[in-house]
């Protein structure tokens, strides 16, 4: 494939146009979705480590009856921080922030996200909210009312310290970040797909991110409303949840779970998307029943909004209402089942090659089915009323959230490692990691089903010896350390391979989606020539890919006149307009800094300073918008 002079000149011109400031400051002002993705990756993994240490301290405390490693005050903070960290600061930022950000523009053949500066703002707000939350822990005032923070326990009367304020304000800031990110994905997926990528040619991973983003946009307002009500009650004495003044504590629960159950699917849908990326690659077969799987991904997100009451079956609701929500909770099995059988049948009719990423997906399928089955049990009202708030539920949601949602993320880290770094990880160590983590997960979380069935409530910092919960807890604790060993091995593998791994080339696994059609790591503009797309497996369409160098030589869709990317119609993916994209900018990080500082002032009751920060934020927005890119 000889590269002609014209092609070389075009590539050099693109390099110049899309080049960002070098060095450390370049990371602060970047609007490149790939660099923002890497910022999300590093930050979310740091929070993962923190959440993991919190879990290990809890497991050590629970290793045997009447243990005194930590007291209840510390334990309650660890338990709350573990939940909040893993959900809001690890899984979602890793799946949406890193995988979504890094991969969606590449998979749809775009040069960036639709709103690159808002994308940067999302990241910096996420970092700000994380720092805010963890400064509570550093000051010894971490939230301690559990991740779902029920009132009246979380009210000023029963939680007089600032811990709950760190939780509420930190999560409000985090919600702004996630809402902006979700809106960005909706527009990116809707409008920036390469010409020719009609919806039925869009990779299933993008369907998953689309479904997730819809869920986020509709679910987060419920949480934010709830948190604002809580802060207004705590700071100014309003009565949203106060029975004596016409409020109701169940209002908190309803709003929380209207967000909280879609949240489960927000967590697990990107994992489905990763599974549908990895399976075709390693089975050399297109996903079976593509349209059904795409529809199922969207249906899961939709039905996920109609099941929240199953978190409240023990609160004394009318039985008719509970039966409705139980039925909805059962119906969601159907789109999940369709996907499970589609993954399995793709593997049965394909020719699977069990390398590390696929092993993690096999693990994922097993955990998802297992955790899904215990989930169905929790829709059975009387059984739920018996085991809710016991370790059975802890076991169930760790199979789903850790086993089913995080396993594909781990597999995905291996799978896209060569794309992001340009180097290969060590396959043998990767497979060893899988077995350690797979076994560790079962040893840690399986016994919790049993301790739950034996009557052990969740969120207890200690338990007496005579109830028979000792062996299960001891095994769980051993498993947790075993699991950690596997994760440390993975970290070592990936960090060493980042510097010493053999060069990977553009497509080491023979992947089907467009990210594999460009170099590893991709250039800042992703594709020198906007790729032609005629199926959801664009990189496997060899005829199309062979024309790319010629089109580059001819200058057909190179868009070298500036920071440009094609805008297409939402359904058919017809060419619509050439969009001018903004360049790197110092304003997103500045705005996030001001917003975080303003939130911290609210927390510290310096309301005048908070108002000053709001005014400053408005000024920053003016400066931000004074530098709009010229329309092409």
């Amino acid at each position, binding site marked *: 494939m000889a590269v002609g002079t014209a092609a070389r000149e075009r590539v050099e011109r693109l390099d110049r146009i899309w080049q960002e400031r070098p060095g450390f400051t370049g990371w602060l002002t970047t609007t490149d979705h790939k660099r923002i993705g890497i910022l999300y990756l590093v930050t979310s993994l740091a929070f993962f480590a923190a959440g993991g240490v919190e879990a290990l301290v809890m497991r050590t405390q629970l290793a045997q009856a009447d243990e005194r490693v930590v*007291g*209840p*005050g510390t334990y*309650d903070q660890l338990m709350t921080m573990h939940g909040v960290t893993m959900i809001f600061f690890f899984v979602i930022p890793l799946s949406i922030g890193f995988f979504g950000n890094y991969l969606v523009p590449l998979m749809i053949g775009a040069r960036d996200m639709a709103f690159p500066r808002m994308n940067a703002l999302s990241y910096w707000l996420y970092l700000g909210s994380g720092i805010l939350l963890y400064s509570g822990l550093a000051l010894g005032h971490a939230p301690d*009312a559990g991740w779902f923070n*029920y009132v*009246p*326990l979380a009210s000023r009367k029963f939680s007089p310290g600032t811990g709950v304020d760190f939780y509420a304000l930190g999560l409000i800031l985090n919600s702004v970040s996630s809402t902006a990110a979700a809106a960005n994905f909706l527009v990116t997926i809707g409008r920036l797909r390469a010409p020719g990528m009609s919806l039925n040619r869009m990779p299933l991973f993008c369907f998953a991110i689309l479904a997730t983003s819809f869920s986020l946009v509709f679910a987060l307002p419920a949480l934010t409303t709830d948190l604002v009500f809580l802060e207004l009650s705590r700071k100014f004495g309003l009565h949203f949840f106060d*029975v004596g003044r016409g409020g109701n*504590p169940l209002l908190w629960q309803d709003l929380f779970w209207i967000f909280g159950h879609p949240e489960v699917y927000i967590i697990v849908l990107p994992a489905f998307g990763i599974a549908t990326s990895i399976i075709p690659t390693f089975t050399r077969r297109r996903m*079976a*029943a593509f349209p059904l799987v795409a529809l*199922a991904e969207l249906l899961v997100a939709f039905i996920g909004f109609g099941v929240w009451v199953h978190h409240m079956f*023990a*609160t*004394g609701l009318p*039985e008719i209402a509970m*039966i409705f929500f*139980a*039925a909805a909770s059962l119906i969601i099995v*159907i789109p999940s*089942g*369709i*996907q*499970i*059988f589609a993954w*399995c*049948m793709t*593997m*049965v*009719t*394909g*020719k*699977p*090659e069990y390398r590390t990423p696929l092993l993690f997906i096999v693990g994922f*399928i*097993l955990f998802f*089915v297992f955790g899904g*089955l215990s989930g*169905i*049990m929790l829709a*059975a009202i*009387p*059984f739920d*009323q*018996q*085991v*809710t*708030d*016991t370790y059975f539920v802890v076991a169930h949601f760790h199979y789903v959230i850790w086993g089913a949602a995080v396993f594909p993320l781990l597999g995905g880290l291996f799978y896209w490692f060569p794309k992001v770094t340009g180097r290969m990880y060590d396959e043998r160590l990767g497979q060893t990691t899988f077995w350690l983590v797979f076994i560790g997960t*079962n040893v840690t979380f399986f*016994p919790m089903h*049993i301790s739950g*069935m*034996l*009557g052990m*409530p969740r*969120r207890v910092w200690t338990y007496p010896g005579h*109830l028979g919960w000792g062996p*299960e807890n001891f095994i769980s604790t051993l498993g947790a350390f075993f699991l950690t060993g596997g994760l440390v091995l993975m970290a070592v593998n990936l960090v060493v391979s980042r510097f010493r791994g053999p060069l990977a080339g553009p497509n080491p696994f023979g992947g089907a989606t467009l990210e594999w059609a460009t170099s590893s790591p991709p250039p800042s503009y992703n594709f020198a020539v906007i790729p032609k797309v005629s199926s959801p497996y664009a990189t496997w369409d060899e005829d199309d890919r062979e024309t790319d160098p010629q089109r580059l030589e001819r200058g057909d869709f190179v868009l070298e006149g500036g920071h440009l990317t094609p805008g297409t119609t939402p359904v058919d993916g017809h060419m619509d307009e050439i969009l001018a994209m903004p360049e790197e900018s110092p304003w997103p990080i500045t705005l996030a800094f001001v917003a975080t500082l303003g939130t911290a002032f609210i927390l510290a009751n310096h309301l005048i300073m908070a108002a000053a920060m709001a005014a400053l934020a408005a000024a920053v927005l003016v400066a931000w918008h004074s530098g709009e890119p010229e329309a092409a």
Partner: protein
Amino acid sequence: MVPLGLPVLLATGCNSNQAITNPATRPARDINTLWWAMFAGAMVVFAVVVALLVIAFVRRGRPGEPSHDDRGPYKVIIGGGLAAPIVVLAILFGFVIHVMPATSSPPGPTKLTVDVIGHQWFWEVRYPGTPAVTADEIHIPSGTAVDVRATTVDVIHSFWVPRLNRKIDMIPGQANRIELDAPDPGVYRGQCSEFCGVGHAQMAFYVIVQPPARFRAWLRVQSRPAATPTTTAGLLGRRTFLTVGCEDCHAIRGTSAAGRVGPDLTHLGSRRTLAALTIPNTPRMLYDWISNPQAIKPGARMPGFASLPAAQRHALVAYLEGLR
């Protein structure tokens, strides 16, 4: 396979006194049956998926390129992901509807009503129509449907005796009800199962099921005011109780002590445990509890009285243990 180990592992703890798998009443038994039925069904489904994954593994080395023909897979996907779940879920749904009435709140008042009121972190127990008030021990007659009205004075707690029935949350502003109808006398352990703050792990209670005659006798005793101490230590103990601050939080019927913050102590000597089942009710333990409750139940609302002369603390123990 790990899941198949479940029945074995469960069996080892099956007869523990808080196990769901050790039911003692009709609703708890129905739920247990529902559980084992769902467990069996779940294992079948799990086995199907495992079988597909095994088939994929075994066939991985067959010659030729994989086929992209979707007709065969569609049949399995529609059958396994749509048709089979509809049937299985309909059956499960029917089973759930069938079990629900047994676990529902009683439709109307039953022969005996007991009020259980959640506190951070103990259980106040009242018998409407009698002056009896106790804590952390709910005595009920066997073979009688008892209507438990579950409420709270502070945060949300959850009333749960797994061997007798499912749980019910205790929520401010609403009175949830649950029926306890135990055929056999015995002592059944329950525990708070909604996170309620630092004392959550140490907020347990007993339901003590007695033959009706013994229950009535017990209730008669509990309805009486506290006995007047007859020993010098007891008299000193009562004087101490009424002067050093105990009466601000605790009530002892028949004395001027009428606090409602801590448990009613009118018949403390008759109870099996202290501090919501945290420690057995013995003079030695009560002495330790009065001296330094935080060492026994961190976060407990009760202040320590270690500054009180030991003689007065011993007198308090003598007085309180005499309240039978």
